[in-house]
């Protein structure tokens, strides 16, 4: 028999409880799982634009890569493959003319067929300085784009520069002729409807919440995508991002917290993987023009005093591949000998310090970024403090926001700065930008070596891997000799996803690749 409340207090309490329970909908008791053929992925930051020619955030590039495509693709494994072109281009003997045959089955989201005119228009727009495209400087060696026939296009370079193909996936896209003038830049930035050829068609941008795309039913790769809708959510808080995954609210997350990654990937219902990026380096920008870093032996002493393996294993839980030179250890162009020259050896570090102008050590300010990007550099900086103290070098940590830090580095106002630098993953990008003159981060090191510049120019002439490996190897040897910049290693890209997600592969270039994913 049920005991009913007998006194007034009990009765009031029971009535209030009952009323409250009646108000609560049944859905309140069970969070709604992600259902149907919607793929929901999560970014750790708030994107500013979808437009690939103005994109600067590598995580957010998934947006542009969903809508736009390129002649060739630098894929998740770091392999160059044809995309809107039928095959990789034919390259002239002087390495200055590239000819592309276009696919004849590609249509834009507005139904218009893609032709060579669209390709020419897209490049012409990018290269016109008046259009102020952020990524234009990467492609300025393109002198002219010519339409040979409706499905054949020729790109002429002012000088040999094979690397430009590797930058297309991240920083370029093909859009319909006349579309920029018709719609304006804001349209490409925040509501690019009908102007791409990609597997996803823009649907809606909810500020500070999510951006959604629907399946392109006429996508030229038949059968793809396998989902009907793609939702890209923005969740900056690590714990919340993980909670969304654990409660099946989302399917894939990027930038899982490094400390938790190994535990989370073994949880029931969760799969996780990481792989080293070819272009994400944890760098120490050593200002060669400011004492004590103006001393070669002092710089080498610093490099040899750092136990990179411990940083990779213990500080970043295996999510950093240790390297002392500007080349990823898993890259085909990595020079092991050069790496050893600057690798961890405390005795050599002390020898270099003794030979320097600062034999008893020195004090250095190191600028680090307040907001973690891929890895929290504060963790490595604290470890570095302890490591360098062993050779008598005192490190003072100075923490700045990204926008402040990057200006400081670009102007050469820092003494030493530590930051994760993300690049497309080909061999020359980081070197060209940090240790060559006339680039946006040249003052980060203040280093200028004609010998290195000559080798770089020679590498632009080559397309064969064996010859390039030799040239890149020599460049690393020079940098090991002069130690113009400190390198701690190359970061891993990592993702966690629900077990129901199939055919997802972690991208060596960091950006999530979702075109072939099945839910």
């Amino acid at each position: 028999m049920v005991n009913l409340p007998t006194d007034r207090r009990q009765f009031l309490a029971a009535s209030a409880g009952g009323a409250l329970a009646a108000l609560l909908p049944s859905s309140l008791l069970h969070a709604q799982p992600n259902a149907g053929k919607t793929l929901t992925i999560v970014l750790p930051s708030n994107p500013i634009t979808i437009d690939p020619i103005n994109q600067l955030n590598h995580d957010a590039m998934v947006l542009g890569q969903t809508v736009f495509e390129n002649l060739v693709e630098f894929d998740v494994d770091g392999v160059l493959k044809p995309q809107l072109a039928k095959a990789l281009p034919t390259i002239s003997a002087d390495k200055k003319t590239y000819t592309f045959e276009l696919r004849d089955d590609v249509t834009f989201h507005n139904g218009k067929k893609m032709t060579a005119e669209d390709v020419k228009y897209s490049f012409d727009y990018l290269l016109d300085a008046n259009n102020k495209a952020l990524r234009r400087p990467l492609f300025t060696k393109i002198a002219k784009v010519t339409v040979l026939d409706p499905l054949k296009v020729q790109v002429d370079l002012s000088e040999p520069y094979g690397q430009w193909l590797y930058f297309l996936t991240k920083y370029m896209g093909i859009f319909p002729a006349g579309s920029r003038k018709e719609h304006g830049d804001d349209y490409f930035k925040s509501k690019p409807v009908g102007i791409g050829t990609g597997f996803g068609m823009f649907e809606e941008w909810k500020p500070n919440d999510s951006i959604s795309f629907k399946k392109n039913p006429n996508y030229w790769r038949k059968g793809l995508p396998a989902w009907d809708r793609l939702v890209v959510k923005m969740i900056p808080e690590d714990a919340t991002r993980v909670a969304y995954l654990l409660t099946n609210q989302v399917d894939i997350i990027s930038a899982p917290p490094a400390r938790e990654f190994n535990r989370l990937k073994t949880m029931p219902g969760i799969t996780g993987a990481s792989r080293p990026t070819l272009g994400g380096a944890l760098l120490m920008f050593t200002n060669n023009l400011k004492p004590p870093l103006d001393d070669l032996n002092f710089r080498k002493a610093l490099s040899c005093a750092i136990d990179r393996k411990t940083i990779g294993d213990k500080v970043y839980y295996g999510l950093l591949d240790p390297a002392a030179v500007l080349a990823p250890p898993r890259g085909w162009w990595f020079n092991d000998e050069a790496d050893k020259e600057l690798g961890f050896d405390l005795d050599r570090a002390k020898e270099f310090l003794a030979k320097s102008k600062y034999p008893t050590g020195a004090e250095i300010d190191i600028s680090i970024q307040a907001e973690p990007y891929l890895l929290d550099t504060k963790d490595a900086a604290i470890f570095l403090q302890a490591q360098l103290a062993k050779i008598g070098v005192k490190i003072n940590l100075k923490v700045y926001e990204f926008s402040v830090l990057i200006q400081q580095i670009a102007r050469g106002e820092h003494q030493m700065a530590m930051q994760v630098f993300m690049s497309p993953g080909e061999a020359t990008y980081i070197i060209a930008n940090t240790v060559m003159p006339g680039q946006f981060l040249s003052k980060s090191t203040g280093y200028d070596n004609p010998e290195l510049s000559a080798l770089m120019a020679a590498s632009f002439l080559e397309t064969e891997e064996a010859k390039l490996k030799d040239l890149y190897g020599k460049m690393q040897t020079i940098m090991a000799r002069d130690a113009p910049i400190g390198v701690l290693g190359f970061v891993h890209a990592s993702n966690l996803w629900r077990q129901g997600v199939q055919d997802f592969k972690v991208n060596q270039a960091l950006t999530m690749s979702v075109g072939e994913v099945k839910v």
Partner: protein
Amino acid sequence: MLRLVAGRIVSSIGTLLFVGFALFAMTRAGPGSPARIVLGADATAAQLAQFEQANGLDRPFLAQYGAWLSDILRGDFGRSFVTGRDVGTEIVNALPVTLSIVLFAFAIAVVFGVGIGIAAALRPGGVFDRVSRLLSVVGLSVPAFWLGIVLIRFVAVDLRWLPPGGYAPLSAGLGAHLQTILMPAVSLAVYYIAVLARMTQASLQDTLRGDYVRTARAMGLSSPRVVVYALINALPPVINLAALSFGYMFGWALIIEQVFNVPGLSRALLNAISQRDFLLLQGIVFLFTIIFVLANLTADLVNRVLDPRQRVAA
């Protein structure tokens, strides 16, 4: 009374003008340029200069301030030069989200805080008094963001009763709406429940010790009626505190919205700070200031209605 209201409105406008100027000066004085955020690390000096010129950031400080103020007076908050979106529209879209969480949290704080405070004051040493003490310690010492993470961990991840975050508007149904605002509102309210409970308890106990209360009881007034009279006299400091709490809640919502991934004003403000989105930042902080000033104005007016001495003094 009208003179009083007019006087308070004039002083509130003065406050808003001062805050607006200080806000404008502080956003411009901070290091970091929106140009670098928008154009990225690879941008050249020429690209940065072009951006600043196009967005009027290269103009003198007072010229920029004058233009902003005159736009604000016309109800035009401007267009974000980071996202390109209209700041007014962005605020209008995000305000209901934050407002629903803050109002719900405020209601929880007032109902539970004042309720527990009254119950504790009426029976010193009783159950509610002990609950009030415990709540004070817990509420004042547990950070809201930590409580939020704990709630997500247990209520959302382990028990699966509520979603871990996000926001469903009222138009999606009361159930869905409550699902998304319950945990953020509770996290936000716990501190203020403790504060309001302690203040109500102290103020009411003090009032109940007054001579006129003893006289009222001696004259044979019923106990509930005595409590009601005492409560009216005990409420002014509680109302002042509640008004301040309402304003402060918008500040704390900054962290709560981040933890619960709620696309409200505070989330937009945080993005505006990190992206140096000056116009959005100024617009949101200015709105928070207006809310704060209005809450205090309302508290003053309510207190004058409740307390005849204040009307006489005015």
